[in-house]
């Protein structure tokens, strides 16, 4: 499979996530779109890792080239899990204060 197909697919998912961040006002949906963008990047990292692995496999049969990208994806998932827990706590706190999850309430951070 050519690498371009993976890039186009991941770019489409990333752009859909970006459109969601730009057009929705519900903070939870905006947060979910950020997760979607993160997942598109993860898939692209794995595709590039397999691309480099396939190229290195022809030179040396026992290579582990490209394994770093998969470890990176693992760490991105770890950081995303921590980020989601803190972010949802912030959204819950915001809902408790304003009784809404509209992000336009947050347009001024003072007061």
């Amino acid at each position, binding site marked *: 499979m050519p690498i371009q197909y993976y890039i186009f697919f991941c770019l489409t998912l990333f752009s*859909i996530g970006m459109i969601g961040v730009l057009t929705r006002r519900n903070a939870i949906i905006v947060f979910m779109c950020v*997760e979607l963008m993160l997942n598109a990047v993860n*898939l692209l990292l794995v595709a590039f890792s397999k691309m480099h692995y396939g190229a290195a496999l022809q030179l040396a049969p026992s290579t582990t080239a490209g394994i770093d990208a998969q470890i990176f994806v693992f760490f991105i998932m770890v950081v995303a899990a921590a980020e989601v827990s*803190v972010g949802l706590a912030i959204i819950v706190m915001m809902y408790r204060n304003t009784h809404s999850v509209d992000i336009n309430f947050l347009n001024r951070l003072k007061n």
Partner: protein
Amino acid sequence: MNTLEILFFALSAFAIVSAIMVLVSKNPIHSVLWLILVFFAISGHYILLNAQFLAIVNIIVYAGAIMVLFLFVIMLMNVKNEKEPQKKLLTKFIGVISGGSLLVLLISLVKQTSQLQGKQVLMKEGTIGLIHPLGKALFNDYVLPFEISSVLFLSAMVGAVIIGKK
């Protein structure tokens, strides 16, 4: 067209349609359910790339833990979907236009890049996605980031509790 290509295009179309449904759905719970379908499609892509460990971790962590957390928060807040204010139509239009132009720009850039021409992704084969080599790399070369991430988790846990208790 062989089986791998059919699976690739089917999973891609499924993921893109589900991702669009995440945006279009009025009810946040429906959005979460569509997003879970996107994550399952991406796990299918990982399996096609023989990244089995990441496929399972994606299902367990994303579709299992994170999305349940989202659902839990939405149901806890009991957000009425008719109460959600919509952005102005002009703002939505501008958002879609800017996102679409980013997509077109990046696709045209990728099409022109000569380094990516003719590069193939190795599918269905290769051992680097299995648990054995990944575990070896994780606990030899990346053991320090692994330990640091546990500290990160601890601080995230403490932070979530402190923010939530206020």
